[in-house]
Structure formats: C-alpha cells, structure tokens
C-alpha cells in the first residue's frame, strides 16, 4: 500500500514538474522574453516528447522492438493536416486543431492496428524489420499519392502557425500522454502488458489475452504518435513524407533507450536533451553530429559497465541516505557497547 502511494506521488511529481515547465515556457513565450531559436524548437521538442513516451509503451512496457514509429507520426501528420486544410476558414482554430489532432490520431491508430497484426506472429528482430518495412511502405504510399502533394510535399502554408498559437495544444497533449501512460503502467492492464514482456507463456497460462493486449499497445502508441504528428505538421509550411523515414524512428528509439525503458520521466528528459543538444552545438557545425555519435556510444558503454554502474548506484540519494543511516546505527551500537 505504502509503495503504491509512493509511486502515485512520484507520478504526480513528474506531472507537476511538466505542468510547471509548460507554465514557465508559456510566461516566457507570451511576455516575449523567449529567444527566437527556443520558440522555433518548442513545438517540435514537445512532439518528440509525445513520440518518445508513446514508443516507450511498445518498447519499454510490452518489450517489443518497433522501428516504425515515424510511420505512424507521418500518417497522423498527413491526415490531420489534410483535415485542417479542409476545415480552414470554416471553423475557429480552437476547434480545428484539436479535431485535426484527433483525426490524425485515429488514422494512425488504424495504421497501428494493421501493423500490430503481423506483430502477433513475429517477435524480436523479425518484428523490428516488419515495423521498419511498414514505415517505409507508408512513406512511399504518401509520396506517390496525389492528394498528399506527392514528392513535392503537402503545402500546409494556409494552416501554418507559430508556437504562440500551438503551445496550449502541445502542452495539453504532452500532459495527457504522460497521464495516460502513468495510469496505464499502474493499472491492471498495464501489469498484464508487463507480464507479457517478462514471460509471455506464463502470462498466457494465467489467462491474459496476449493478442488483445499486444494489439491494444500498438493502437494506443500509434494514436498518440499520430496526434503528435498532426500538431507537428502545423509548424511547417510544407511537409514531405520522405522526411519521416526509418532514421526518425531510430532517433525516437534512441531517446527511449537513453531515457530508460519504461520510464516516462526519463523519456521526457531524454527527448528534451537530445533534441536541444544538437541545436545548442550549432557553432561546432560539422563536428556536432560526430560528437553526438561519440556521446551516444560512450553513454551506452558507460551505462553497461558493471563497475561504473555500481559507482553511480552508490551516488543515488536513496542509497546515500541508507548508508548514512546504517552508519548512524552502527555508531549508536558502538556507543551503547562502551
């Protein structure tokens, strides 16, 4: 019971920090104190947070490797933006943008259902290649259709708006995504999903419907990715399907892994750091991606080094506190013996 309360508190804290962060950003943005560079990054970084948190559901909770998340984002982006273009001028922005996000999410969720079907038969690296293949198929289909603008890209200039208009929607989407994931993780359904990750056969034998949960995870993750994609499309005047290839999926996967599997707060922090770092390193120009690659390799080597792991675990506040307490008890015992 106490543990459950503790995790609830921890989740509430994460949510509160996120909300506070957006409140500060909103104050900075609307008072005009925010730099142009940060303003341009605001919405894309927020959307990457949503992408990472939703992919974490597939990779972290369900334990399946998906390399197709960019495909769902792309599906949501194009369907959402097409709806937004259609409704433009007919309904006010406050209805149009949420509607387009919902539409983007629903179309992506259908995509998630279709991609999730082969996932029922495949696992591991075979599933990874199938999700990657689906992402590439989505990319070629959108590039070759007429109403999505084809290879030239979709002209979204009429619905293009800046961060000042989009920030409330982005903040709400980030908070909703985080809230849903947190609740799911603690719910019966979430525990069922994690039990599939830990031991599929054991989960099946205690009556957990593996098919249902696997599909549900793919659909839910795709929904959020699609909604994020729809909003993401509104920050550009032209969107091309080719910019959402497997490299984007890999980028999101890197965020999830660096942030920590199954950790929502970790995904948020990693998304912010990894998306802003390359922008901050702009002055190093060509070297920045090289540095990024080296940092990525070194972080992986360091986090998997048993000796370093022990060292960092020793630095954790909780462990330090325990050590200190143990020390005090020993001191007291030593004192009482005298």
């Amino acid at each position, binding site marked *: 019971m106490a543990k459950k309360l503790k995790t609830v508190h921890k989740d509430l804290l994460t949510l509160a920090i996120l909300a506070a962060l957006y409140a500060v950003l909103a104050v900075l943005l609307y008072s005009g104190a925010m730099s142009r560079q940060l303003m341009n990054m605001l919405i894309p970084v927020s959307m990457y947070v949503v992408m990472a948190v939703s992919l974490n559901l597939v990779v972290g909770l369900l334990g399946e490797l998906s390399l197709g998340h960019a495909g769902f984002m792309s599906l949501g982006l194009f369907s959402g933006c097409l709806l937004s273009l259609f409704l433009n001028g007919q309904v006010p922005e406050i209805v149009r943008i949420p509607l387009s996000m919902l539409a983007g999410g629903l179309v992506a969720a259908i995509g998630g259902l279709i991609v999730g079907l082969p996932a029922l038969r495949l696992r591991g690296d075979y599933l990874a290649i199938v999700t990657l293949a689906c992402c590439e*198929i989505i990319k070629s289909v959108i590039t070759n259709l007429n109403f999505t603008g084809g290879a030239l890209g979709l002209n979204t200039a009429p619905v293009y708006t800046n961060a000042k208009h989009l920030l409330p929607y982005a903040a709400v989407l980030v908070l909703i995504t985080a809230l849903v994931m947190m609740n799911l993780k603690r719910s019966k359904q979430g525990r069922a999903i994690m039990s599939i990750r830990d031991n599929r*056969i054991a989960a099946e034998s205690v009556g957990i419907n593996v098919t249902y949960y696997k599909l549900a995870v793919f659909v839910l993750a795709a929904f959020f990715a699609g909604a994020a994609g729809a909003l993401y499309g509104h920050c550009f005047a032209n969107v091309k399907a080719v910019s959402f290839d497997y490299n984007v999926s890999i980028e999101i996967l890197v965020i999830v892994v660096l942030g920590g*599997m199954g950790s929502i707060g970790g995904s948020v922090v990693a998304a912010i750091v990894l998306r802003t770092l390359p922008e901050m390193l702009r002055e190093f120009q*060509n070297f920045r991606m090289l540095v990024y690659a080296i940092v990525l*390799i070194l972080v992986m080597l360091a986090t998997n080094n048993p000796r370093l792991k022990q060292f960092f675990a020793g630095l954790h506040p909780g462990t330090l506190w325990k050590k200190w307490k143990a020390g005090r008890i020993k001191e007291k015992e030593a004192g009482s013996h005298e």
Partner: protein
Amino acid sequence: MSIFLRTFISGLNLGSIYALIALGYSMVYGIAKMLNFAHGDIIMIGAYTGIVAVMNLHLPPVVALIVSVIVCAGLGMLIETLAYKPLRQAPSLSVLITAIGVSYFLQNLALLIFGSEQKAYPQMSGLGSFTILDVKVDGITVMTLAVTAVIMIGLTLFINGTRMGKAMRAVSEDRGAAELMGISVNKTILITFAIGSGLAAIASAFYGMTYVYIKPTTGSMPGIKAFTAAVFGGIGSLPGAMLGGILLGLIEQFAKAYISTQWSDAIVFAVLILVLIVRPTGLLGKKSTEKV
C-alpha cells in the same frame, strides 16, 4: 522476352550485391547475436577507400579492391573491439543503440573528410560486353555474378570444412558450451566481423561500378535492403542470406520494370511482410520451439 531477360540479369546483379552485404549481416547476427546497424556504412567506407586508392594513389583496380577489403576488415575488427566487445553481456537494445551510434559516427566522419557532394566511383573499362538474345550484358555484370558465386561457394566450404568455420557454427549454436570446449568466443566473433566487413568491401566495389555515385549516406539504403534480405531468407542462415539477397534484387528489378519505379520499394517491403506472416522465421530460418 528481351525486357524479361534484361530485368532478370539486372535483378541478379543487384541481388548479388544485396546477397554479399546480407551475408555479413547474417553471419554477425548468427554468431554475435546482434544487429550490426553500422554494416551499411562499412560499404560506404569501402567505396570511398576504393575512390581514394584509384584516384589519389593511382593503384590498379584489383589492388584497390584488395586495399579496400583490408581497410574494411580492419575497421570491422576495430569497431567490434572498441564498441561491441565491452557490451557482450549488455541487453540487446543497448548493443543496437551502440551500433546506431557507430553508424552515425562513420557517416559523419565521411562527411567531414569527403564533404557532402557525391563522388564518382572509378569505372573499370576494358571488360567489354556481349549480347545474348538481343540483350547487351556488361562485363562488370558477369564479373559481379561470377565473383559472388565464387565467394558463396568459398564461404560455404569455409564454414563447413575448416576448424574456424566449425568454431563459428559452435559459437552460433551455444556460446557458453563453445567456450567450455575451449573455443575462443572473442576471437571467433572478431574473425566473423573481419569476414563480414571484407564482403561488404567487395559489395561496395560492385555497387560503385553499378550505381557510380557515392556520398556519405550511400550505405544506409543498401544496408537496410540487405538487412531485409537477411531476414527474408532467415537471419543467421548463410544460404538464407544468399537466397534472400538474390530474390530481393529480382523482386525489386521486376517491380521496377513491370509495375512502377516509384512503388518498387513499397512492393519489396510488402512481399517481405507477406513472407514473414506465412513463415515467421524467414524462408530458410530455423524454427525455434519455445520451451516453458
């Protein structure tokens, strides 16, 4: 009929290149149990090495190919020692991310050294061409097919006939048991990387002579296609990688010739998904039975 034959030959040509790359993917997967995402970028490094060797050092093409094989094999061993070996006990996703990091590193290193504009791969002239049934066949195509066939036979003999090949099969079967039998797992994996990367260098030469232009991101698409081919045939299986590569090349060229150039990639991936739904471990992959 002549369109069919021409497509068939170009499909075999492309398929041979995919097969050579897929062999490297599959060997590394089978023995080190990891997806080496940086494998595609080894091809790019091999191609640039070939360009430098011929254009700047004025070496004859065959010597340039040997230099490129040595450079790539060395690079493969270096990557394995520095980046993958310390992660032998780590979760597979960490290894995958490291491989992605290596891939970014190689691409950006090439970008810094050679710049972003594409460079032409030196073409081998004097191979001539001949005609069968009204179809002109380039000498280079014949050479690609012949060399790939020789390599495939050689590799099969090596894996099945030599001590090292036996060690490789043993490590791939059960790493722990192999180690107990006195096989040096690290050495076996190192040699696997050297062979895989060397094959990628040979593939890079054929790729360069077929597609001419090379840039720092050249390796990623053939890399992904070869990965697809390896999975198609059943990852970890060498005959599977050969079959998968050649079939993938054929499907791609036939889709381009008879259906649509733009849709060819989508068709290739759709066929892959269909095959995997019917046979979840690929065409020649081992069926794994799950034990409780």
